[in-house]
């Protein structure tokens, strides 16, 4: 069970992973030594698995296409969906793999430079696999919010007065 201080520490880190232990000490009231040890322990235990950067490609002239591929598969005797998912996650194009409830079994997130790249990946690499029964590809057209961050409209926040009592 995480203590309230540790929950707070993880929360602040999840907002900004660039903060130093000293920055975090100021913001939490914990000692920098404690924070360093705790972060090391979380890294070793794979609680913290990566320090990420969320990029809004819509702001750049870079073409980047993301798609959700829903896949229906034949589960395998003994390993169910695990071996199949294991195989999928080796493809570098596939950024995430989830076992889902509902009409499809697995949901994968795929990134490519354009729609053609993704279509080719699905037709050439995924669909021929004998475990796959069917696929459904859905492209992301616009990102409004991701990982709790609003991508459009944040700059349109209403103006506050310069000073109030």
């Amino acid at each position, binding site marked *: 069970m995480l203590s309230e201080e540790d929950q707070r520490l993880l929360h*602040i880190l999840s907002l*900004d992973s660039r903060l130093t232990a000293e920055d975090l000490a100021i*913001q*939490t009231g914990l000692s920098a030594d404690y924070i360093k040890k705790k972060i090391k322990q979380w890294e070793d235990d794979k609680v913290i698995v990566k320090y990420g950067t969320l990029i809004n490609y819509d702001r750049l002239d870079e073409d980047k296409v993301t798609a959700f591929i829903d896949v229906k598969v034949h589960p395998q005797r003994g390993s169910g969906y695990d071996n199949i998912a294991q195989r999928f996650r080796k493809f570098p194009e596939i950024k995430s793999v989830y076992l889902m409830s509902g009409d499809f079994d697995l949901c994968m997130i795929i990134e490519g430079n354009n729609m053609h790249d993704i279509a080719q990946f699905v037709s050439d690499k995924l669909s021929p696999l004998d475990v796959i029964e069917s696929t459904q590809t859905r492209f992301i057209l616009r990102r409004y919010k991701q990982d709790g961050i609003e991508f459009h409209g944040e700059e349109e*926040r209403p103006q*506050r007065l*310069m*000073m*109030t*009592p």
Partner: protein
Amino acid sequence: MKQYLTPTARNLKPSGIRRFFDLAATMEDVISLGVGEPDFSTPWVMTEAAIFSLEKGQTMYTSNAGNIELRREICKYMAKHQGLTYNPDNEILITVGASEAIDLAMRALISPGDGVLIPDPSYVSYAACAELAGAEVHYVHLRAEHEFRLQVEDLQSAYTPNCKVLILSYPNNPTGAIMTREDLLPIARFASEHDLIVISDEIYADLSYGYEPTPFATLPYMWNRTLHVSGFSKAYAMTGWRIGYVAGHSDLLNAMLKIHQYTIMCAPIMAQVAALEGLRSGESAKKEMVMEYDRRRRIVVNGFREMGLTCFEPLGAFYVFPDITVTGLSSEQFAEELLKEEKVAVVPGTAFGPCGEGHIRCSYAYSTQQLNEALSRIANFVKKRI
């Protein structure tokens, strides 16, 4: 045309913040730490509830005292979180912000010439509302060496036999100071011995960090003589919705209700709907905001201390009140020169009463990025002067 004005209206001083507002408004790229309101939008569940109610056509008056469901929910909240029991039928009044509750209390309690004890520094409206009601204002010095906690000796010095009302505001604007139950007990005894009615403005009670606020009405013999004022503006980020409330003895509340019904009629219904939803399902959003303020509070206190200014640790509200005397500047000079040189807007401590001299008020209801930039500019300014 000034001859038509009453002497009270003519002589009422404008808020000390106004001048800086006007000055800052003429400049570009100013970073302001001058805003006494949350930088968060009202939690969506509350806004959505108000939109839905409008779609259903709920656009009419509520009862003068406010929507009975909201009054009941406030009573439940106060009983659960503050150990205070009020009857929603006649001991709660929904007002247009806590500001209206303060004004109503003054108008219901004060006859011309009555004295009102007001801590100095404190929120700009207290003295003005008291004066508008015809009161004689007696400032009670709050001292930095006591972390701006009201001391009974200072209360005694300011007291005269015409005093009828004492205003308290903890957690405090502008200092961020708090008072514990032990700190408040002698004040309660004083109020009882001198037959004072206490207007306790507890609008910042939910914004407190690492301590449990003590509602003044919970102290021995204080329920009858306390008007507990609060509202939704600060903790629920609802400043523009203007919903406050006051709880107290029905005799006092009935008089305030009469003034309210002849002047305001009732608080706006859509804002009351949003407030009701806040009490029912806004708790987690409120907690997240409090956690975020706490984080920023630590950054700002540390920032001021690192630049060599004395800054006691505020445990409530979202203000810091650093001591700037080491720069050799008065509060007004500091705020004005800082604005002109570094384009950072802060409020001089004297805007909150003469005892605010030597301090500035900085709000930390801003993003970490804005706070860091403002602190860096202030540090640059201070470095040249110490």
